C-alpha cells in the first residue's frame, strides 16, 4: 500500500502545483491587443539564438530598427530585446541573460535610458520583467527595478500581483492561454502608418543635466560585460524628437564613448545621411519611426556593423537562410495587411 500512498501524494501535490500555474497563466495579462508591447521580451525565448547583433533599450529600439531589413540587405541576423521604458539596469540584465543563450558580436544600447537614475513605475517594470524567464539575471533586475512599496515575490510569482484580474478575464485570456499570436519581427514592432511631425515641445530647463551615478554605473557594467566576453558595445540615440534629448546629455555620452573607444551614433544628427524624412518616416509625429523610417535606419546601420565590427554576411548559411525566409515572409505579410487596413480607412 505504500506505493499507492506515495503515488497519490505525488499526484495531489502535482495537481496543486499544476492548478497554481494554470491560474497564474490565466490571470496574467496577455498583451495581445492594446498594449502589445508587454509581449516583446518573452518573444526572445522562441528564438534559436544565432544572432550577431542584439539591441537593448526602450521603444526607441523596438520601433526604429528592422532586423528583417538588416538580414535582407546585409545578411546580419539580429534581435531587438527592447521594451517600453526599459531602464538601463534592465537592459544590462537582459544582456547578461542573453549570454546564457548566445554570444552576439555586438550589443547595441540606446542611450535615452541614461536619463533615469532610479526605478520609475511598477507598471513599466512589469512590461520588461514579467516577460523574462526566471533566472539570476531576472532576480537581479527585479531587485534593481522595484519601487519602495513593492515585493520581490510579486514579480517572481506574478499570481500574487494579478490575482484580482480574475474578475476581469476576457475571451483573450483563454484564447491565448497556450500560444500568443505572433506580433513582432525579431523584437521589431511594425507600424506602416504615417503621421508627420508638425511641432514638438522644447525640453524643459533642468536643474542638473548630469546623468546619475546609478545610470553611469550600469553603462560601465555593460562595457565590462562586453569586454569580458569579447563583444563590442555600440551606443546609439534613435532619431526620436521626443522625449527631448538635451545637448548636455549628448555631450556626456560622446565623452564617454570617446574615452572608452566606443562608437556612438546620434541619429538626430544624421538625418541627412540616413534619409529620415519626418513627413513620411514616423507614425506618431516623431516619437517613433514607422516601417519606412526603421528600414532607412537599418540600411544606414548595416554597413557600419559590417565595416566597424566585422559582422559577416551570413546569407550563405543554409539553415539560417531558411529561418529568415519564414521571418521575411511574415514581415511582408504583416506589411501588406497593415497597408490594406490603412487603405480601407
Amino acid at each position, binding site marked *: *500500500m505504500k506505493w*499507492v*500512498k506515495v503515488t*497519490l*501524494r505525488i*499526484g*495531489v*501535490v502535482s*495537481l*496543486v502545483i499544476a*492548478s*497554481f500555474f494554470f491560474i497564474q497563466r490565466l*490571470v496574467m*495579462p496577455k498583451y495581445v491587443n*492594446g*498594449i502589445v*508591447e*508587454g509581449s516583446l521580451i518573452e518573444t526572445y525565448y522562441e528564438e534559436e539564438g544565432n544572432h550577431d547583433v542584439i539591441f537593448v533599450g*526602450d*521603444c526607441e529600439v523596438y520601433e526604429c530598427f528592422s532586423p528583417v531589413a538588416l538580414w535582407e540587405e546585409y545578411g546580419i541576423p539580429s534581435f531587438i530585446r527592447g521594451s*517600453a*521604458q526599459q531602464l538601463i539596469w534592465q537592459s544590462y540584465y537582459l544582456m547578461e541573460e542573453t549570454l546564457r543563450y548566445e554570444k552576439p558580436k555586438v550589443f547595441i544600447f540606446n542611450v535615452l535610458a541614461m536619463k533615469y537614475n532610479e526605478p520609475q*513605475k*511598477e*507598471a*513599466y517594470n*512589469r*512590461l520588461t520583467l514579467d516577460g523574462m524567464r526566471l533566472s539570476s539575471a531576472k532576480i537581479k533586475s527585479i531587485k534593481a527595478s522595484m*519601487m519602495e*512599496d513593492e*515585493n520581490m*515575490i*510579486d514579480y517572481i510569482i506574478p*499570481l*500574487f*500581483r*494579478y*490575482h*484580482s*484580474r*480574475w474578475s*476581469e478575464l476576457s475571451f483573450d485570456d483563454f484564447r491565448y492561454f497556450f500560444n500568443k499570436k505572433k506580433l513582432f519581427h525579431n523584437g521589431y514592432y511594425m507600424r506602416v502608418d504615417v503621421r508627420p511631425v508638425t*511641432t*514638438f*515641445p522644447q525640453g*524643459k*530647463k*533642468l*536643474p*542638473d543635466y548630469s546623468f546619475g551615478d546609478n545610470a553611469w554605473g550600469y553603462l560601465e557594467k555593460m562595457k565590462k560585460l562586453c569586454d569580458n566576453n569579447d563583444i563590442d558595445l555600440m551606443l546609439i540615440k534613435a532619431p526620436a524628437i*521626443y522625449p527631448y534629448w538635451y545637448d548636455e546629455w549628448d555631450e556626456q555620452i560622446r565623452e564617454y564613448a570617446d574615452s572608452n573607444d566606443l562608437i556612438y551614433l546620434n541619429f538626430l544628427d544624421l538625418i541627412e545621411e540616413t534619409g529620415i524624412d519626418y513627413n513620411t518616416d514616423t507614425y*506618431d*509625429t516623431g*516619437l517613433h519611426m514607422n516601417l519606412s523610417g526603421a528600414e532607412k535606419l537599418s540600411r544606414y546601420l548595416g554597413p557600419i556593423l559590417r565595416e566597424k565590427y566585422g559582422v559577416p554576411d551570413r546569407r550563405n548559411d543554409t539553415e539560417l537562410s531558411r529561418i529568415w525566409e519564414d521571418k521575411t515572409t511574415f514581415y511582408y505579410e504583416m506589411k501588406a495587411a497593415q497597408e490594406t487596413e490603412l487603405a480601407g480607412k
Partner: protein
Amino acid sequence: MILLGDLMLRMKKTCVLSVAFIMVLTLFSGCADPTGSLSNSDSETSGAQDNEGYSFKTSGIAISMHDDMAPILDKLGEAKSYFEAESCAFPGLEKTYTYSSFSLYTYEDGDIDRLAALVILDDSVGTAEGIYLNDSLDKIIAAYGSDYTHSLNLYSFEKDRMKLSFIVEDDIVTSIEYVALAGE
C-alpha cells in the same frame, strides 16, 4: 478498502489544505491595487479634488494642478502649438499646449484630461505671488517663505498635491514650473 478510503481522505485533506494555503497567499499578497489593472494612473495623480496648492493666474482665471483641462482650454482659447505623445505602455495621450508665455502639460484621469504641469516661458507672466523669470532668490523667499526644499539650484515649495519649483542660477530665476504630485 477501508485503508484506501482512509488514505483518500488524508489526500483530500492535503489537497484542500494546499489549495487553501495557495489561496490565502494569493489573496493576501500584492493587494495594493484591488483592480489588478496596471493603468497609467496607478502611481500617477488621479481624481478630482479641491486644489489648495499654488495657482497660476492668467486671463482672469486661476489654473491649479489637477484641474480639468476642458474649461481651462475653453477660456484660454486656441494654443499657439499643440503636441501629443502616446505612451509606449498605456492607452492614452500626454498633451502639451503651448501659449505665448507658458506651456500646459496634461495627464489622463479616466476620460478627463487634467493639468500635470505648467511651465512659464518668459517674464511677461509670473506666479500669482508675483515671482517672474529673472527675479532673485530673496524675492522668492519673501513671497513664499523659507519652507522650501533645495537641491542643487532647484528650490521647491510643496503644497497640497502640487509643487512649485524655481531654478535659480547666479541668483537669477531661470525657470518656474508648477507640477502635480501623486497621492491623495
